[in-house]
């Protein structure tokens, strides 16, 4: 009996070990390394181990940091709002208006088609569309809506957010759709039986019950946008910067300690944002 219990304990540990090791080596250890390096010092040509707060001090005293963080929040906020509206609408359509499962699956797969190519390709494909002499401008000019090509279509915040929305809306659709599919259809009938109009059903039944999915989607989108740097670089034509680009620039200049400090601040910011979001909605039952 004793031996059996002992072997059960051992089995338990052994079963948990692989995941623990993976997380330890590929998550905890790298973050710990970044944390340690963020206190190191650097000259133009070398970095040296130290324990100093110079990197953080510089980061928090530079107005650039605040501008860049503000920009990053702006990207995250606007992208979040756009993906939420589009994602909710698409998920609602798939879950409540498409009746047959076959069509649901077919349309759902249709949504994933953009993901069959890489991120960068999808972004770059916007360039001929949005460019000065691109399809959008020439069509608008032919239709006589504008006379001069619109300059803000490409290499602008508009382009950055457009690309973000394009890239990440699916991350909103999937969890919201998943939650909506679990809503008992008789609840909607019950609401109608109680005199709720279509809009009242949406605000009183569907949205409250879809909150966990909305929250999971929001976490995906916010973390992805907060951590991005490629989209911002390509779509803004290097004219805009977010925190990701700040880090990537530092790395390009071999300023690893400074990059590490910025990364730590970004990580803390994102964690705080997620913590706040989780306070509003309990997503546990979705997992």
């Amino acid at each position, binding site marked *: 009996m004793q031996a059996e219990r002992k072997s059960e304990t051992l089995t338990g540990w052994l079963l948990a070990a692989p995941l623990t090791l993976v997380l330890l080596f590929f998550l905890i250890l790298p973050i710990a390394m970044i944390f340690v390096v963020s206190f190191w010092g650097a000259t133009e040509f070398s970095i040296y181990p130290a324990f100093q707060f110079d990197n953080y001090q510089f980061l928090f005293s530079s107005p650039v940091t605040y501008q860049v963080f503000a920009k990053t929040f702006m990207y995250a906020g606007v992208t979040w709002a756009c993906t939420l509206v589009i994602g909710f609408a698409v998920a609602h359509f798939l879950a409540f208006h498409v009746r047959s499962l076959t069509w649901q699956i077919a349309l759902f797969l249709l949504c994933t088609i953009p993901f069959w190519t890489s991120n960068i390709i999808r972004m770059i494909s916007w360039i001929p569309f949005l460019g000065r002499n691109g399809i959008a401008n020439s069509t608008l000019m032919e239709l006589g809506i504008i006379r001069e090509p619109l300059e803000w279509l490409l290499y602008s915040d508009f382009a950055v957010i457009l690309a973000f929305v394009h890239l990440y809306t699916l991350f909103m659709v999937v969890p919201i759709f998943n939650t909506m599919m679990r809503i*008992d259809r*008789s*609840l909607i*009938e*019950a*609401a*109608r*039986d*109680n*005199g*709720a*109009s279509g809009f*009242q059903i949406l605000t*009183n*039944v569907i949205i*409250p*019950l879809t909150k966990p999915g909305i929250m999971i989607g929001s976490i995906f989108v916010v973390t992805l946008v907060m951590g991005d740097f490629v989209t911002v670089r390509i779509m803004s034509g290097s004219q805009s910067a977010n925190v990701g680009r700040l880090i990537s620039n530092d790395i390009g200049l071999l300023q690893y300690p400074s990059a590490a400090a910025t990364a730590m601040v970004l990580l803390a910011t994102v964690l705080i944002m997620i913590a706040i979001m989780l306070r509003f909605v309990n997503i546990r039952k979705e997992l």
Partner: protein
Amino acid sequence: MRTEKDLELVALTKRYGDSLAVDSINHVFPAGGYVCLLGPSGCGKSSTLRMIAGHESVTEGSIVLEGAEIAHLPPARRGTAMMFQSYALFPHLSVEENVAFSLKMKGVDKATRLGRARELLELVDMTKFAGRLPAQLSGGQQQRVALARALITKPRVLLLDEPLSALDPFLRVRMRAELKKLQRELGILFIHVTHGQDEALALADQVVLMNVGRIEQAGTARDVFDAPRTEFVARFMGGHNIVGRPGERYAVRSDRVRLDRSAASGLRARVSGIEYQGASVHVALACPGEGELTAVLPDRDFFAAPLDPEAAVGVTWDPADQHRLGA
């Protein structure tokens, strides 16, 4: 018996594509009655109920409540309220908010609607659970909340879709009694869909037995059980023996069958099984020419002169107890 307050179905039909779910039924539900729509699954009873509620479109025919055609009205404006099979309580709202939901939809202010909800919760004896979420309630408690939510709209007809099927047998009997009591107190028409004939017999003033989209027989619970009109009714209600030749068949209640232990009179039969049921004893009989018959004997009669398996007996009944069956 007809009053102006009746609910009447006129040639009510429901088609799903090519299949006919409800085949042009006509029926008058008396105001203030307890009516059970009874039948096997797929007989059209739920479709009928959902058409009355307005959750299913009517293919043809009309639904008339208190002299007004309601088939084209939205559910909430028909004067009906529905209690769903799984209760369909809103999981994110507390008990009192669930009950007050329809008032909230009408834009009644919070204090008034919660006050009304309290009154209804009092009616179903759930006041002390007002602040709980549905998931924190037992099945029977959820059902009471669902009842309160349906009744807050002051419906003239309450539609119950298999309301007891989600409960365990013990609770089912208790909630059954509560439903009946509530109906008597409120004096409104209850239409209760069920596939359990015992539930229908226990509750209904009127039983409407349906089969393949048609009403097979409608009448008081006693009429339907005592004098089944067709073989289907006799078999569905149970407790009947069906005897006779094709084209001329009769139903005889099992408890009206008498056994002649000397085997001198009646149909000759052999005892093929004996089941003790407490108050009664079910004797299965193999009868050449008639197949399996059942005799239900009071336990006292049986044990006064117990039968052995394989014993030969004569099966008799009073001719007044046999009912001719239609096709």
